[in-house]
């Protein structure tokens, strides 16, 4: 009798864990909507803080296009003066850079995707990560609740199922509207960075975070990206932008 009771309890806990996991994936799928735009133009500023010292503000234009399931992105720096004309092109896992000082284009190795983008706290992979969303690449479960900026959020633990630069991500997703507010990024056993998403504004049918910051938990630095302009489905996004020939033609 006792054994049966234990088995029932086990079954109940397994079922509830499964139900929780299914719920978590559904929530993530909805939260990912913000990242699953097929074509996007964006102008933004990036400010890097080292300790209390702010670095020169970087202004950049980004173009994103998803075609045949492959993400393409192009980022062109407009400021500061030293960086004006520097550009990064990403097609799937490939990454190219155009140097403003010489106008030459070089291909970076795939491992460089994990390097800091423009000296910021974002890696190139962090920058592109959002374009694909998380739900399809992680196993997720709800591990609790948290209050962020007065909003009730689910705490969802995400463990990447394939190769990934982080070993674990804990997301805070609002309970009512299923928006990401915070992503804690873990690697080698420690919490290394936290991404904060705020100032959500309605763009077409999606609430888009206009301020995204990345805070290092292992150093005194923080990077804040503020969206200045955003145009989903913009006519500015053309297929020819995502070719190295276009990179070479940039002035």
């Amino acid at each position, binding site marked *: 009798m006792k054994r049966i009771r234990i088995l029932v309890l086990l079954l109940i806990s397994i079922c509830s864990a499964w139900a929780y996991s299914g719920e978590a994936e559904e929530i993530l799928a909805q939260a990912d909507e913000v990242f699953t735009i097929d074509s996007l133009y964006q102008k933004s500023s990036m400010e890097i803080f080292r300790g209390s010292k702010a*670095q020169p503000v970087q202004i950049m234009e980004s173009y994103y296009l998803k075609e045949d399931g492959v993400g393409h992105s192009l980022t062109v720096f407009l400021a500061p*003066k030293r960086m004006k004309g520097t550009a990064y092109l990403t097609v799937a896992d490939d990454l190219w850079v155009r140097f403003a*000082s010489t106008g030459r284009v070089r291909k*970076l190795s795939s*491992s460089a995707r994990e*390097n800091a983008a423009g*000296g910021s706290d974002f890696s190139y992979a962090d920058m592109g990560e959002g374009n694909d969303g998380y739900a399809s690449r992680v196993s997720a479960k709800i591990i609790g609740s948290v209050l962020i900026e007065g909003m009730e959020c689910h705490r969802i633990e995400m463990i990447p199922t394939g190769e990934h630069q982080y070993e674990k991500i804990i997301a805070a997703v609002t309970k009512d509207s299923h928006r990401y507010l915070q992503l804690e990024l873990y690697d080698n056993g*420690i919490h290394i960075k936290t991404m904060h998403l705020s100032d959500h504004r309605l763009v077409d049918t999606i609430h888009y975070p206009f301020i995204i910051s990345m805070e290092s938990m*292992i150093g*005194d630095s923080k990077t804040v990206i503020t969206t200045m302009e955003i145009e989903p489905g913009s006519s500015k996004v053309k297929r020819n932008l995502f070719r190295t020939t276009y990179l070479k033609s940039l002035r």
Partner: protein
Amino acid sequence: MRIRRTEKLLSAWADWSSISYRKAFVIIVVITALLSLGYFKLHMEMTFYSLMPKDTASVQDFQVITEEFPFASQIVVVVGTDREADTAQVKQTIDALQKEFSGPQYEQSIESVYGKVDRTFLQDHGLMLMEREDLARFSDSYQDYNLVPLLRSFNDDFEREYTGDADALEDEQLEAVSRFQSLEVLLSLIDQAARGGETDEQQVLMTIEDHLLGESYILSEDGHMGLMFILPTFTINDFLEYGHILEIEENVREIAAAQGTTAGLTGMIVVGKDEMVTSEQGLGLSMIIAFTLIIMLMILVFRMNSAPVLTGLPLIIGIIWTVGASGLVVGRLNIITAMYLVALMGLGIDYAIHIFSTYIQSRDEGLSWHDGIIFAYTTSGRGIITGGLTTAAAFAALAFAESDILRELGIVAGIGILCEMAAMLLMIPPLLGRRHQRLERKGRIDPIHRKSLRLRSTMTGRIGILVQRHPGKILAVSLCFGVILSLFAPGVRIEDNLMEMEAKGLESIELQDLLVEEFGMAPDGLFILSSDIQELEGLEEELSELQTVASVDSIHSYLPSEERQLLRRGLITEYAERISQRPPSDPAIDRQGLLDEVFRLEMNLMELGDMAYLGKMERISPVLNRITGIDDEGSKYRRTVFDDLAASLLSDAASPQLQLLQSQVDRSMAYLLTDMADPQLITREMLPDMFRDSFVSRDGSRYIMTINAKENPWVGEHREAFTTQVGSVTGRATGMILVADQLTYMAANDGIRSALLALLIVGLILVADFRNIRLALLTFLPLLLSFGTLFGIMAITGIRFDFINVIAIPLLIGIGIDDAVHIDHRYRKEGPGSMDRVIARTGTAVLLTTITTIIGFASFIPSVMRAMRSTGIVLSLAMALAFFYSIFLHPAVLILVHERLGASFASWGDKEEES
């Protein structure tokens, strides 16, 4: 019954020992002799690792590192000039310092001095030290030493480098800086030759040496600073030898000044020396003043010139008993327990004050000296014993702490309190007896009778009247004060950066920060010991991948495992063959080809400059900006060697000097690379002293690996991230920063947990003593408010708890309770309506003990060491608060509860008798 027995026992001892003082002294001598046996078991462990958890592999490794690896105790000499000065001046200073400190006059204090990296070893085994893939790339690049193919190979290499991994550039900034600088020199030599100038073969060889082997001096990227290492004959644990560091420091400054430069010392051993010096700075005078004030106070209040002797002798005997008993129980004294012995003097004197206060009061009231002693013991003895037991219990609660260091402190401190209390109770009656019998023999009158000063402080008398008249108002005001400040208490923080506890502006610590900025050297890291080089090679690969790790230095960089060397040997032999069969130096130079490669090189350096700017590589970016002439705005701001060289090469004038340079470069490259391509396996015996002292133990049995953190590991959150990540790879890392963790843990967790336990034990003692739960609970009120107020004030003023000032917690429990306990005992003796008298009499002793304790602790405040200063402030504040609540709030509560509400304070036994 038990109470009466205690009083009876105390009065019997006072009676007998004051008369038969010689016999009493014999008993004391016997006790002292017995406890002195503990000295044979005692050993002093004034080492940093004595603070770490005992018997763990990590501590044992740290001990081996400290004692067996000369570099663990290195003195780092930082030589500097103003930015405009010539690097040559820095190099000259380092040479002069090396010469001076290698002299026989320093034989006693200095083992070795290193001012330069041994390039001969790198020249002899350079290729064997390269990773296999780097070796393959290197041998592909350096095949043809004619100028055009050589520059082409540099360009190919650069393009491969940055297309691969920008982080690699960041990790090896210093090496890259040296390479760029030597390249600039080579380009200027080409320009000189292209203009028809003759180049010096020796200078060409040196330039190629710098390019292939790196700089031999350890210089900052702009060359205005340099480093030198002095290995002393003593270790960081030999505190008594620290005087040698002062001598070295003085001479270093003198020599640097003579060379027109400046110099300072750093390294853990220098920080240790500075700690010792600064902890004494400002303390000498204040401690003398404090000591004099306490002596004067004792003479004045007790009206006896012999008062310091009568109290001082039992105090010293108490310390002797404490050390002996600690030897028997614990077996060792560490830095913290040894420091506590100083604090014990301040606590021990309190027992003497309570005895003497009652004794003098009894004499003032007309009792003889003998009756006075008995009265003092009957009246104050029980209070002293309860107070002593509560203080000892408060400390003894630390014995249940998790950290060894706090456990030992609890045991030694508990023993110390009991020994001091016993020494005072046992020794004061025979000492007073001897004094009076001598006075009587000499026919002199006791000075107490000649003085009109009465030991009933006007201040405490007034407080007594005030409390007696307005207990309600006093309770309301003091409760408001305590509760309001207690609301801020949760804001109190723990200091987790040991360097914040040091003196501000300490040169050795500022120089550590400079090492990070100018040389990319982290001040402290973690170490791993191993006797297996292959194991270290494997660990290095994993550790270098961690985000919190800046670099990993290990013996395998200079002595690769035999397995790896054998893998490299084939490539090296093959490359050595190629050098011998290389194409001859081309008598003609393709000027256009050279120009193309120079342009290509310029573009490569500009792109690297962009990456360095974008990646905020602060060491490399200014160097590349200067070489390419491009500022942070991306504008050209200066004429560069590229501009000069392009102009020279574009001119039609043929230059035979260019051919001469080409042949000089060819010869230099061939000479150096032939040496570097030695296929002989490297053995430990071939290592230069500097590398051996850095990575190999004195007996040659073990190797050390140093893991440097990206961020300052003394900052708590950085340290936690760093140690956690390293811990995910290996559990064998050790180092000074783990001591910091241990100490922070002690302040944060153990302190609080032990305090709660102490409160419980003290509560039980009070219940056993009073046999009245109500009175025991009320006695806690002043203590709890003292804690709340203290934490609140600390939170408001930003004073943090650290592992030194955390001692305030058990002290406050012990002493804070004591003050209230003395009031309780006297009040129960004197009865209702007597609170003015109780405060006037007992309050005076409590005031005196508070004043002496505050004077003692406040003497720490002038110290330049921030930890000592905060300890002085926190302890003085804690004592003042305990006094305030015990003298104002507690008596008011007793009056209200007992006299107004009619609650009984009688003991259970007495109640039974009453009924």
